[in-house]
């Protein structure tokens, strides 16, 4: 019984969402507000029970002596709370500064470790047919290198402005880069559509199969 109810409820909600395609309507707005509300509520519940309680409150309540470092996040939380009042807002700046400090470090570390270094290393390809494994592979590698360099050059901000030294070269490279970027966009577009469409197929499969029982 409850399964039937779930299927019907899910089907009705799905249809309400699709009704937006015909035009904005009150039912759709209601559904979206319900969606936003429940997601906020759910997020708060998750945060309470998987972060705040086990990782802050419990360590402090159980053994504050051993877990004294957790006073720091507690203090920061209280500082953040002062931000809600205009007169004490400056106190909260420390908490925000903490976020920005750690965030900046994580951004730098993540960029270095995750993309900067590996991508540079990956772009060291061989362009000689003997070590690349054939002429075609070597030609592809040349294209790869030219494309990468061109794309990088496309983003020059202060160099290559007309009149500055080497501007012709930079401009040429960035024109190549512009083409490469748009080809890349096209490729990703075509590649990604499948993922988006498969989300729709899954829903239609649900509507036609699980709900209406039309599919064998």
């Amino acid at each position, binding site marked *: 019984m409850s399964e039937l109810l779930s299927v019907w409820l899910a089907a009705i909600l799905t249809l309400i969402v699709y009704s937006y395609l015909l035009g904005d309507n009150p039912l759709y707005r209601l559904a979206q507000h319900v969606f936003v509300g429940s997601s906020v509520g759910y997020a708060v519940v998750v945060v309470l029970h998987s972060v705040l309680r086990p990782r802050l409150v419990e360590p402090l309540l159980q053994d504050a002596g051993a877990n004294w470092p957790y006073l720091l996040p507690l203090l920061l939380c209280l500082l953040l709370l002062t931000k809600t009042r205009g007169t004490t807002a400056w106190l909260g700046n420390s908490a925000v500064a903490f976020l920005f400090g750690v965030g900046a470090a994580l951004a730098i570390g993540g960029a270095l470790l995750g993309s900067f270094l590996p991508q540079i290393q990956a772009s060291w390809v061989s362009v000689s047919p003997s070590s690349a494994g054939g002429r075609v592979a070597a030609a592809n590698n040349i294209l790869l290198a030219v494309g990468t360099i061109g794309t990088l050059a496309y983003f020059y901000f202060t160099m290559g402005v007309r009149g500055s030294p080497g501007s012709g070269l930079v401009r040429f490279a960035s024109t190549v880069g512009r083409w490469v970027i748009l080809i890349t966009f096209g490729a990703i577009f075509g590649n990604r559509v499948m993922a988006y*469409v498969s989300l729709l197929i899954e829903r239609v499969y649900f509507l036609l199969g699980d709900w209406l029982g039309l599919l064998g």
Partner: protein
Amino acid sequence: MMTCPHCGAANKPDSRFCGECGQPLGVPQGVTCPMCDTPNPPGVSVCTKCGAQLVPPGLSPTDMPLEAGEYGERAAAAEAQPEGAREPAGDSRELEETEAAIGAAEEMVPPWLKKLEGIPGEETPAELEEEDQRELSELPEWLEVPPDLEEMLAEASATASEEEVALAEIPSWLQALRPDQVEGDEEPTGAPGLAEITGLLKGIKGTLGIEPVVAIPRRAMPLPAATPSSASYEKAELFGTVVREAARPGVEVAPRRRVETLMASTVRWIIYLILFAGVAVPLLLGSTWSEANMPVTSATAAMYEAVEALPADSVVLISHDYDPGSAGEMVPQVEAVLHHLMERQARLINVSLTPEGSRLARQVVERVAEEHGYVPGEDYLSLGYVTGVEAAPRTIVEELRSAEWSGFVGTGQDPSLIVEFAGTPEYLRLWLEQVQGPYGLPMVAGVSATADPYARPYYRNEAQRQLLGLMTGLVGAAEYERHSGEAGLALASMDSQSVVHVAMVLLIMVGNVAYFGGRLRGKPS
């Protein structure tokens, strides 16, 4: 058209920087329009872009720099007062002045403006008020002067001195590295910055540093007078008559716009309908064209063989690292592989490096497990989201070696196979670098279509065999289903995908035909 003061090149009227030399266009000398923010050359009284009045009619445009300078000095004078003293005494006096000015302005509100309050219409100020209650009076915007202009300017220059000049540039600890810096720069308040400020504000007439301009409210500049002159009163009257006038017959315009919007939404409906039909019709017809014609790539076949080769009761670690965005591709993959694994009677440990992944996986795993009569906790485990992304894969494998897990995995044993489902390449990289490489465990992966170019080299690497098998996107899932002879969601949806993709290409073509057709008829699309 706008001429660059630096190189003389012609630029688009609304560009901020010269396309030739990159210098900012017409910042200091000109007048910035309070309505549309377009910089105008000095000496004009009407904005070149939107036609708004730049100078109250009582004033000749040449008065401008003088007035602006005067304001700068007044602001500087306010700044010169000690901070404590400025607040109560100085402000109240200034406030009185401005209040008087506002009062005068309000008295002069043309009668039509008062009448207008009840009239609904696009131009009525009432509608603006709904958006923002701070609308000061019903005066046209170009007449309106913020009541606390002086205060604002003083504050702005204070900010300019304290923040922008002294602190913004270089943090105090770095200051030590720069011997030729003016002393006392770090001092947040007080007199030392004063001379500079007057200089800066005077500088409005000539060249300006970049930072201080930002702090000075732009619209305050061209509005030196608080009381409207009689000329402006006349203009306001004129504006009133224009507003009160019965709406001109906009008949040609309005219905055409309605037709256009109707057309736009009809086109949209057609597109939506095509898409929906493209998905639903093949599903309803149960078309099996792809099922019969689908080739299976060697990478997917290799993945199948890797699972097929598992002895019964071997332990397999599955990581679900995807989000709702890639779930459409990944879930069919997971389903296909899970069916196969459960047929091989493998015991499964499900983990996830993303919270969404664990949520999405839970539903699929439970459903498939139920079909195969798998018992949770005995035949398979769902460990959920494992925190600490960067080091999580290693932690998981180390944990499985510990005594706690000897019941499920066997003492000090590793899983026989790792199956990684990666929506983005980062997760695949983590598993390869932290587990496959160091521990040498056999591993296969299912990746989204976008992650494929990153994953492919690991499969192709014959020497190391980092990935024993690889399947890509929904097509990969379909291939897997075809190879294993068990048609599922992925194979069933292949025909829909084909139809939708072809439809999408046709849409792009039609869109271009419409675009060029529109262009030929001289209508911008």
